[in-house]
């Protein structure tokens, strides 16, 4: 079945990309698949622009702040207010510049592909130290690797302070490690407990790689957690003095003193490597597992094509993954070359972030003020940098199309249309630029009959075809 070239251009921009900016449909029309493939590049994703600090710098700031807080307390300042101020000053510009990139980029597929991996490896703002690490985590661990090998992406994610803090890995101590068995520390005394925390180990297997139900056991999780002991961040208090390890403050460090000695037995295989290489070998093995290929292929197909993805597409993505040793650029090309991904029917409902970004793109605008952009996302159910769990944001339409959410999208559309009225061009032209062949006659008619430009734009943004992709 051949698809109309105008429809194919619309699909390239809306389903694979983040929504069409004015002029993009025309640019993609001659060769939509080539247009998308040209966005795949070894250097990985684009980087949000602005004066953004590294994860290490943020980590060190939080530590300095925590040290200062004792003084603040004596001065009568409120530590909670101070903490919130710190979050405001660092995480907000970070999120805003990320949203600006999404609204302005000419490589919408590259950014959608990147946001998929950011959500796959969710780090969320569960407390102050993680709140400032989400942006750096995405920039430093995810973006450089999105078109490389999955194994490298997995390693970068697992070693980043953001992930190590978010899933409590920095607190995990081998029960028989030097630290735990040294008098005055660990179990030995000083009133400090120390032991395993299996959170990161479990979520790597369940969410990042093999997938739930793929056959690993509680014993595998616990053994993997033992293998991961010592994976930490330089500057955590347990690395002081005699337990010191190499590395710059705020960056990954391996603490031999916290590492559980001995070989580990995981998935029936013995891992007798020393130190950091032990969990590294486990990560290598799980990255190459067919279960991981199946899990990732299913998630990619679900994100790009349908909540209930076509099995043939999943099988093809899986096969590319296994044939190329997990090369994500090849997997992306396979996705673009798959006919299932080009079916005209729109089967994906936009998340709040996707809806807002595509609304800005339709007018060639970008948000310039976090205090107006962030709270909207929160009210639509997608609080900035704060996914509700390590599983990330929901993928399915049912989760986002709740009655309350639709009413709130409607309210935002009206406010956005009213605010942008002074810079708005002809609404019908905006509709054609944004949707092209996806624009249906009833919506076209409703837009043309609107009693004002803002009303016309609000109708377009809330139309069934603009809410979907």
């Amino acid at each position, binding site marked *: 079945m051949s698809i109309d070239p105008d429809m194919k251009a619309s699909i390239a921009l809306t389903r694979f990309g983040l929504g069409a900016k004015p002029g993009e449909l025309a640019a993609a029309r001659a060769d939509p698949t080539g247009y998308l493939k040209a966005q795949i590049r070894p250097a990985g994703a684009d980087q949000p622009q602005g004066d953004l600090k590294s994860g290490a710098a943020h980590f060190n700031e939080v530590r300095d702040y925590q040290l200062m*807080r004792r003084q603040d307390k004596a001065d009568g300042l409120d530590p909670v207010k101070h903490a919130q101020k710190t979050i405001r000053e660092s995480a907000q510009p970070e999120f805003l510049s990320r949203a600006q990139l999404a609204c302005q980029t000419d490589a919408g597929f590259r950014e959608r592909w990147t946001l998929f991996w950011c959500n796959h490896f969710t780090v969320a703002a569960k407390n102050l130290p993680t709140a400032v690490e989400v942006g750096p985590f995405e920039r430093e661990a995810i973006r450089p690797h999105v078109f490389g090998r999955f194994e490298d992406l997995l390693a970068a994610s697992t070693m980043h302070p953001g992930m190590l803090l978010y899933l409590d890995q920095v607190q995990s101590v081998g029960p028989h490690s030097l630290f735990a068995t040294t008098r005055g520390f660990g179990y030995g005394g000083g009133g400090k407990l120390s032991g*395993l925390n299996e959170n990161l180990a479990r979520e790597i297997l369940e969410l990042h790689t093999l997938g739930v139900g793929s056959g690993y056991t509680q014993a595998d999780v616990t053994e993997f957690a033992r293998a991961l002991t010592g994976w930490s961040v330089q500057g955590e208090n347990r690395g002081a003095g005699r337990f010191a390890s190499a590395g710059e403050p705020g960056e990954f460090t391996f603490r031999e003193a916290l590492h559980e000695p001995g070989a580990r037995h995981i998935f029936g295989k013995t891992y007798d490597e020393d130190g950091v290489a032990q969990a590294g070998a486990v990560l290598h093995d799980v990255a190459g597992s067919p279960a991981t290929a199946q899990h990732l292929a299913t998630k990619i197909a679900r994100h790009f094509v349908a909540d209930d993805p076509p099995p043939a597409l999943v099988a093809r993505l899986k096969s590319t993954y296994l044939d190329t040793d997990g090369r994500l650029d090849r997997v992306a090309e396979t996705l673009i070359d798959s006919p299932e991904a080009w079916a005209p029917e729109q089967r994906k409902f936009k998340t709040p972030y996707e809806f807002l970004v595509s609304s800005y793109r339709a007018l060639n605008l970008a948000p310039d003020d976090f205090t107006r952009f962030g709270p909207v996302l929160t009210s639509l*159910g997608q609080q900035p940098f704060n996914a509700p769990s390590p599983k990330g944001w929901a993928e399915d339409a049912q989760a986002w199309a709740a009655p309350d959410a*639709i009413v*709130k999208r409607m309210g935002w*559309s009206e406010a956005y249309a009213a605010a942008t009225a002074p810079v708005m061009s002809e609404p019908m032209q905006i509709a054609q630029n944004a949707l092209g062949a996806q624009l249906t006659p009833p919506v076209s008619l409703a837009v043309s009959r609107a009693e004002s430009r803002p009303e016309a734009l609000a109708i377009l943004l809330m139309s069934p075809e603009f809410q979907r992709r």
Partner: protein
Amino acid sequence: MTRPLDLTRRSALLAAAGAGVSISFLGRSAYAAAEGDLARRKLVVIICRGAMDGLSVSPPVGDPNYKPLRGEIAIGGFDQADGALKLDDTFGLHPKLTTIHALALKGQARIAPAVATPDRARSHFEAQDLLENGSPVVYGASSGWLNRAMEALGPRKIEAISVGAQAPLILRGKIQAASWSPGGYKDRDSRLPGILADLYAHDPLLGPALASGLETEAMAKVATSAMGSESAMNPAATPAATSMSMASPAPSGDYAQQVRQAQAQVGRQGAVAARALGTTLAHFMTEPNGPQIAAISIDGFDTHANQGAAEGQLANRLAYLDAVIDGLQSGLGPEWSNTVVVAATEFGRTAHVNGTRGTDHGTASTALIAGGALKPGGIVGDWPTLAQGRLFEARDTAPTLDMRGLFKGVLAEQLGVDRRALDTVVFPDSAGVAPVAGIVA
């Protein structure tokens, strides 16, 4: 824009759109009223996400193994300041659960201390799916058991509502449920809702959602004005907001005391919002022909590190839960006597404290059952004890009661859902799981 809602106009628009949902709260009159007793019965299900620690919700301080297993995160004994609130010789309630304790003393709250879904994989996401879809196997159903229970009662007999920006699985399914979160749709003069209702006329996803959302907004206006408080309209009151935990840095060294104070302060603010949320929901439910079924999600129970005891991370979430129930009870007024509230979680946590003053994923946990419609009684289900030989896989509270049995008992006795529907449609392939009897008076 303060002029009154033009409900007649809106209702007409929506009905004309043929959106699949005839107007419910305000346009529908006959159905529920005709059902006599059922028309008054109310059920609220609170899903506590992240694996709520049953051994802190209802600490078995009389169990000799409790204190040694829990160490510094153990809740104190009945005689201690900040200790457990006594239920019987074995069990107390967490000191933050003061509302629930007061209800328990009146025979209006009970605990099921060792309840679990059929899941044993200790995955939050699988287990939450089972908790909400009622299936015995993962991915066994794509709709929620509460929705199928409504379907089993007959079409459009009763209404349901969820609170929060996202629709929870438990209420998804063939029956369109309303949803609401604080922060309303303001522009009452707009033509847009009517135009969209037309455009959504044949859209099975957006049509019913918009219709339901607009009805609920109309209800919210009435319900929140009845409260006489703007606090419920504050976005911070939504249970989905996790800003509470954002402001609670992990304690280290000498900061622990400061952090505890900060957490307590944040917890108090959260409790005010939570109570307002419960009150607002209660007002929805007491409107004529308002929803009789409601679902609320509360997250933040995944306490792997620095869980706290009488104060701290988990204590704040329990205070939030207690305040929601407090708000519900006061908002429902006399209707409380027709109400059952069930609070449940996907699984419990390890019996042992872990190496980071927290607990890892476990198996059985505590479900709370409250309401004026309750039949007084002791614990629901058996207590397996925490003796080493009795722990599940030598680490978790062992399950003695299938969560589905508890839900089936509540649905049977509170809403009159028949056994055959419970065994097959509402909880597929569950004939072997008997409904717990004697929960509702």
